[in-house]
């Protein structure tokens, strides 16, 4: 057979290593929210060092092929490690750390050359390289194939010019996975190619952006004649849309939870603790109307998880829409999260919009509200998910498009003219 450790042996070795090397999580951890504490480059460096130890101990990339730095073990090994690690403080590389492994690496595994994978993947597992997405242009988000950031051939490589935006955590990342136009004279989906862009190379400027929470997390990148060697290209020239489809799938998975792994539905647990606390603060804990709002949110939160388990089962059972079912999970969260956040404001009233100086919990409720449209916008908006479900699951006809069979150059010029003559 093979000389892989069985799951139980692996679990025991993980348990022993974790106990000796990582700190335990406290029993009750203070609630956090995106934007509550800024992740500094120094703070990330501490977690990079921790991740390197996890990697060296053989607990990173558990299911990845050995040749790319992984262990080549089964999802059951991975699940066993996760269970053991749940009570420890694991390395936290922020949102870029998640994107690096769950989106960028997956794209490389599917589309990059062997040489590229050997060069980058082990370093990604060890957190020597953190990768982010350079996807959206300022003028191309939902219409991702409409990017105007351009790469032209130049002496064994490419010269990159343009601007990218909404790249979370790019200020502490090492590389961006960049979608660029390499041919303006074909229809928009056909002239795209992917490149690896180092954030520290000449011609690349990363500008952190201050966002709605007041924190700085996502960034804008400006490329001025940045040189990319051809071996840092991912996928064939002009096949960028095919690669993008992979990236968008894993982005949906990363933001809505992985469906492919076997899932067991955990019980509903405590009744929406944030809403209950806000009801207490507002003095409305005995108000039957408030009970209705709390339980409705609690029910819908649980329903999203139940839906994820059902979708995973349907995918495994061979549902004809296959991986396209992931859009249901993304859309469900994109609808339920804003509804929950609005319920919090309705329940809390004044208590939700004003709190004592230094009251972290009060602040987290506000941050939850400000973050509540992350899922409904990022990684494909609710509207894009609805189109995907409508067309690929329900089989409804596409809306007529006006840029089909036209070169991107022509489409782009029409858009510029429209802007000049409103």
């Amino acid at each position: 057979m093979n000389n892989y450790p069985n799951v139980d042996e692996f679990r025991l070795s993980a348990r022993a290593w974790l106990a000796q090397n990582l700190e335990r999580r406290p029993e009750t951890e203070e609630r956090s929210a995106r934007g509550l504490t800024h992740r500094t480059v120094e703070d990330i460096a501490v977690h990079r060092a921790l991740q390197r130890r996890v990697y060296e101990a053989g607990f990173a990339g558990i299911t990845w092929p050995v040749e790319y730095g992984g262990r080549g073990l089964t999802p059951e090994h991975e699940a066993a490690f996760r269970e053991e690690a749940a009570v420890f403080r694991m390395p936290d590389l922020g949102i870029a750390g998640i994107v690096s492994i769950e989106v960028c690496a997956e794209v490389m595994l599917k589309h990059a050359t062997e040489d590229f994978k050997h060069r980058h993947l082990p370093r990604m597992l060890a957190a020597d390289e953190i990768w982010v997405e350079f996807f959206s242009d300022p003028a191309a988000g939902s219409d991702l194939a409409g990017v105007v950031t351009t790469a032209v051939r130049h002496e064994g490589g490419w010269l990159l010019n343009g601007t990218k935006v909404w790249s979370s955590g790019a200020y502490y990342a090492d590389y961006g996975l960049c979608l660029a136009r390499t041919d303006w004279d074909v229809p928009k989906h056909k002239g795209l190619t992917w490149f690896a862009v180092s954030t520290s190379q000449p011609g690349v400027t990363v500008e952190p952006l201050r966002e709605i929470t007041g924190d700085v997390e996502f960034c804008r990148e400006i490329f001025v004649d940045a040189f990319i060697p051809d071996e840092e290209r991912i996928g064939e020239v002009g096949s960028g849309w095919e690669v993008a489809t992979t990236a968008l799938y894993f982005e949906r998975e990363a933001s809505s939870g992985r469906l492919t792994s076997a899932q067991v539905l955990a019980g509903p647990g405590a009744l929406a603790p944030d809403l209950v606390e806000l009801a207490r603060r507002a003095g409305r804990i005995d108000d039957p109307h408030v009970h209705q709002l709390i339980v409705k949110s609690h029910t819908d939160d649980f329903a999203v998880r139940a839906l994820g388990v059902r979708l995973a089962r349907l995918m495994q059972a061979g549902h004809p829409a296959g991986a396209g079912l992931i859009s249901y999970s993304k859309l469900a969260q994109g609808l339920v999260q804003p509804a929950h956040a609005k319920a919090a404001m309705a329940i809390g009233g004044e208590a939700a919009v004003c709190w004592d100086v230094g009251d972290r919990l009060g602040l987290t409720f506000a941050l939850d509200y400000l973050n509540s449209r992350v899922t409904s916008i990022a990684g494909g908006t609710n509207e894009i998910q609805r189109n995907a479900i409508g067309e690929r699951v329900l089989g409804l006809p596409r809306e007529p498009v006006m840029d089909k069979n036209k070169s991107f150059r022509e489409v782009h010029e029409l858009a510029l003219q429209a802007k000049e003559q409103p």
Partner: protein
Amino acid sequence: MTVAVQPKPPRWLEPDKRELTLATEAILDETMPLSRVRALTDAGGGLDRAFVQRASAAGLFAWPGSLADAAVIAEEWGRALAPEPWIEAHIVRDLLTQIGSDTQREQALPDLINGTRVAAWASGDLPGYWGRERLGVTSTSAALVLNGKASSVQHAADADYILLAARDGDGVSQFLVPSTSAGIRCERREGLDITRPRYDVTFDNVALLPDALIGARGMADLERQVQHAIVLVTSQTVGAMRLLLDRAVAYAKTRFAFGRPIGSFQAVKHLLVEASLGVETSAAMRDAALNAVVAGQVDAAEIVSMAKSCVARNGIEVAHAAWQVFGGIAYMWEDDFHLYLRRITADAAFLGSADWHHARIAALHALSTPESAA
């Protein structure tokens, strides 16, 4: 409805449910097509005993198998809009099998299984549920005597038995009462769901025979049958929702306006997508409730209540989305749409509304006292 005359579009079924689904569908197509549902409705909504016996002979009525399989059958039942008291049959069979007396098992049960006799269930008046409690028994030297009124009992006047739960001193007792007993009066009511007749049943000093008592006196635990019935009614609603969705999607592909299929307009497409999310979410919550009940999870009561709330709310939204897509056609009496709208909306209120279940969940989490939940 106008699109109903088109050949049935193929539908994807989960492999492990396929055989039972198709077997149920075949019997329903043959013996209880929508034209038959309409004919029964026009005739006043009586019971089709020949159909019940036919379905019973196929083992699809008073289902003896697992709750999971019962949910599969119930989904088809809902899809076909079959009006017969299928959930009631399942509940009575389960009760008598689990805790029925020898006499009940020997005398009542066989006829309920072969479909020669059917039972109605006074499910709107369960002590401790949905806030109505008007049935009570008292002991006399001769017998137990039942008094009170049960509201909106489906098929009561046509059924051979009425299953009911009544306050009995400090406890609750459950009875299977022959509908011909002296002192029972059924009064027809009108209702949104015109396919299933409902009656107010008055019990005026009805003397109960000892054989009528199910289980131990004063010790009735209604929770199991309530949970089972909710799994089944949510399954029926999921079936009805999915049928409406399928038809609305098919219609949106073929109905042209402004030179293109209306389903290509995002306003229509997105409406249908949210409806399909509502169907999948409802099915997921039904699955969660089913699994929690079968596994006897400690939080089964909460998950069942969540499922009822979720399916009730989504069912109505899906029906309205289909309504909007069909447009004026759905307003026609001869179109089948309104029959589904009526059923889905009526079943949203059956076995506790969404709001009632929310209050129950709040009580389970000790956010409120059970009294205020009722």
